[in-house]
């Protein structure tokens, strides 16, 4: 089945390569990117109790394949991708649940993990908005979600999407950590409780 028959109107790729942060080159260079697909909402005019499963099975795997392919092709292959995240922006005629249906089931998430060779839960953002809304997409490490160096975000936005009858489905990825990440990790953290910080919270 071709992309148009599934209602895919547009594919947008956006990347940021940071050369300087606070005047200094990152010790570990990284590119952050998003790939976004603008699709017709397949559930328009339905009821709040409708079963969404049938269209999820048809559409979500195609989006997982397409968005992972775009990111891998632009970022130097699956091996280069260290962090990932996902998002959906539902147009104003849709339900938030419609966006959730496309990104929160195994027909998207499991396939993204398989194609990106990752094991983590995929962190996410979702929203309902007019065309041109921006959304911050969280990313974390694809195999070790608690790796603090890789907590980062990238902002996604498409000027003419989503229309009221559309959904924008976004996959984010990064080839490395934050620039100058230096706030420790779970392994190095002290034990912090209210007693430890004392008067600051009393």
């Amino acid at each position, binding site marked *: 089945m071709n992309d148009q028959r599934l209602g895919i109107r547009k*594919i947008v790729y956006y990347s*940021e390569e940071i*050369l300087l942060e606070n005047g200094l080159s990152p010790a570990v260079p990284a590119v952050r990117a998003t790939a976004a697909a603008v699709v017709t909402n397949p559930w328009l005019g339905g009821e709040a109790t409708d079963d969404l499963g049938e269209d999820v099975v048809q559409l979500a795997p195609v989006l997982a394949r397409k968005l992972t392919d775009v990111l891998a092709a632009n970022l130097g292959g699956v091996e280069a991708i260290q962090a990932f995240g996902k998002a959906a922006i539902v147009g104003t005629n849709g339900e938030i649940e419609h966006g959730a249906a496309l990104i929160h089931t195994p027909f998207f998430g499991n396939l993204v993990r398989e194609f990106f060779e990752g094991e983590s839960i995929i962190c996410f953002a979702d929203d309902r908005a007019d065309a041109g809304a921006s959304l911050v997409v969280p990313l974390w490490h694809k195999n070790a979600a608690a790796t603090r160096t890789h907590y980062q975000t990238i902002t996604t936005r498409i000027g003419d999407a989503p229309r009221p009858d559309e959904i924008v489905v976004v996959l984010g990825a990064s080839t490395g950590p934050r620039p100058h990440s230096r706030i420790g990790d779970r392994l190095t953290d002290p034990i912090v409780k209210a007693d430890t910080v004392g008067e600051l919270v009393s």
Partner: protein
Amino acid sequence: MSIRKIVTLTEDVLIEGGRDVTPNARVAVVAAIVKNPWAGQGFVEDLSPGIDGNASDIGALLAPRVLEALGAPAEAYGKAAIVGLNGEIEHGSGLIHTLAFGNHFRDAANATTLLPAVEKRGPAGVVFDIPLKHITDATIRSHHQSIEVRINDAPHADEIVIALAAAAQGRPQQRLAAFATETK
């Protein structure tokens, strides 16, 4: 030349007006976020040293990248300079309105026409549209188009966003009369 970040954007249109676009229509943008060479200097009368020291290097950096992002021969192109709030629009114009900048793109794309441009000043996250026209004949109406860009954290007040845009084709579903054919 101090570059903080390089942004790449591609848009592939698969459907326009409810009909398939075959082949898909692609427009690409590559932007460099650079330090304003004249930041903090007050009114600088002669901009040429700053232009000579930066414009060619930025053009040489962006031209091959935008063509690589396009992944096809360019048929239309354009450019942009978005100046941060502390700068003059003349600063951005200085960096892009010189052959030393534009010829890198023109030569790489086998182009001959002037590059249409947007110059404006705005805060980080400002939305701007880059106009594109045909690379060898600016009267070819099918190729008049634009692409919208926004970079969330740029330009800072002392920065300038310099961008090039390239399209592999004219507008999706273009079907207007050619230039001058409708006049009496």
